[in-house]
């Protein structure tokens, strides 16, 4: 299999942008090209990660997105989610057909209705939508089961918020910059019991661009390539009632990614992880399913301090999705943050240890119906 590396990347901050989505996209895509000293004409292929009307107000979002991503009369395509766009772009290079692909994912949460309104449209119109299913209500039910089955406490879940928002204070791109204590979290208003408002991700703007290159080409573009080592993706049954919400398909995705990357002991071999946790407790649950701790041990993991910035396995040094949630782009943000850590270029939120191997994770759907796992290496 042909090797693929990240040659350059650019990201916007998560705060509300006054730019039109088109201009907002252009600036970030251009920055990623400029950093690699490349022009739009020289890129082999353009890949867009965006979601149409429910996350942009425009149907066939690739139409509007085409110009800002630099895709005029270029080979290209669009995937409905940013990690999908990333891996499809990698496939294009692996196939030998292209040497470079510019992947851009974009969304302006500030223009869209509430997250809950958007995600309720994932539901079928007859059954789940009328009874109020959306990502938040599904997550709340998942959290209750998690606490019930494994005696995870509300404090342990709240600790994730305290840690991640604490990390975000050092990330110049993060949307939410607020120091919160565990008590702040526990006393914040209930959204969907047992979920509290500070345990739920915000709605952010976010454009992120990654220039990918083949092994032959990447040397011309950067002296710090970050390599794709592993990938796994898996989707679960649609109806939450058909699944075990605590034993989902993330394990399958992780196993595939580890196998491809040759990882046998993720706890030891992964230096840092960027995990998609739109709801605080999910970071703990996903850590279990990613094999970063044992089953039901998510609570002890956070208590131990291992996942803090200075711990042995930092999780979400960027502040994670709790600090910034550009819905469609959030997966690619995880990849970019993981790559920055590998390059040692994360600035103030660079972790204390040498990072050789990093994990990036993305998820969408009710209670994590679909997961993607990416392993990167320096």
């Amino acid at each position, binding site marked *: 299999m042909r090797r693929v590396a990240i040659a350059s990347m650019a990201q916007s901050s998560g705060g509300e942008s006054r730019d039109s989505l088109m201009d907002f996209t252009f600036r970030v895509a251009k920055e990623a090209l400029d950093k690699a000293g490349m022009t739009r004409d020289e890129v082999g292929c353009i890949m867009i990660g965006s979601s149409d009307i429910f996350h942009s*107000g425009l149907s066939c979002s690739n139409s509007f997105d085409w110009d800002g991503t630099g895709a005029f009369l270029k080979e290209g395509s669009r995937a409905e989610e940013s990690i999908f766009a990333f891996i499809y772009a990698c496939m294009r290079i692996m196939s030998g057909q292209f040497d470079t692909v510019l992947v851009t994912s974009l969304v302006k949460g500030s223009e869209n209705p509430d997250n809950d309104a958007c995600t309720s449209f994932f539901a079928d*119109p007859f*059954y789940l939508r009328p009874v109020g299913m959306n990502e938040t209500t599904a997550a709340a039910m998942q959290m209750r089961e998690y606490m019930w089955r494994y005696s995870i406490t509300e404090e342990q879940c709240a600790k994730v918020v305290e840690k991640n928002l604490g990390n975000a204070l050092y990330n110049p791109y993060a949307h939410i910059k607020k120091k919160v204590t565990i008590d702040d979290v526990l006393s914040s208003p209930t959204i969907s*019991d047992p979920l509290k408002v500070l345990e739920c991700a915000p709605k952010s703007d976010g454009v992120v661009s990654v220039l990918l290159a083949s092994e032959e080409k990447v040397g011309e573009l950067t002296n710090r390539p970050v390599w794709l080592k592993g990938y796994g993706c898996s989707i679960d049954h649609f109806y939450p009632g058909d699944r075990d919400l605590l034993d989902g398909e993330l394990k399958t995705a992780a196993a595939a990614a580890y196998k491809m990357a040759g990882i046998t002991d993720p706890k030891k071999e992964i230096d840092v992880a960027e995990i998609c946790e739109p709801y605080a407790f999910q970071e703990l649950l996903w850590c279990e399913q990613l094999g970063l701790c044992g089953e039901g041990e998510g609570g002890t993991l956070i208590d131990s301090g291992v996942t803090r910035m200075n711990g042995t396995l930092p999780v979400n040094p960027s502040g994670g999705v709790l600090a910034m949630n550009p819905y469609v782009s959030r997966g690619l943000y995880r990849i970019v943050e993981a790559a920055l850590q590998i390059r040692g270029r994360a600035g103030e939120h660079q972790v204390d240890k040498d990072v050789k191997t990093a994990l990036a994770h993305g998820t969408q759907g009710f209670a994590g119906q679909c997961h993607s796992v990416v392993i990167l290496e320096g």
Partner: protein
Amino acid sequence: MSKEYRTIRNDVSLPYRWSLGPVWTRFFDGLKDEKIYGTKCTQCCKVLAPARPFCPGCFGAMTEWIEVGQEGTVTSWTLVKNRYYGQIKEPPYIMALILLDGTDCGFSHFIGGIEMTDVEEVKKKVAVGTRVRAKWSQDKNATIYDIAYFEPVG
């Protein structure tokens, strides 16, 4: 406009008529008669409700119809308190996953018939493992709302 910079309000409004297909039509007709139907997979023998045209696990058609229990056990629940655009009803309300007797999957619906203003009071009546029973609506339109909610038993 609510924002201090120039924006365009773009309300997308479109009409739909989604096909129920024969299986869901029959399921919703059943609700009208105060019956909850599931279908059984001949391969894995799971009974799923609402009724499904095919088994999500085995991919085979599910043609055996079974009337399932109107009582079941709560496997998880949430008390919804926040408001959002297009919300289905005024909060607070309780959504739950209920394992109906004779089925092998969670049924998503409301829990009602109890006071919901104080979550601590709710927790005394609703928990994982609580038994609940379907409470039927007076007016029936062959929709999921023909079941008004599930109420704790006893």
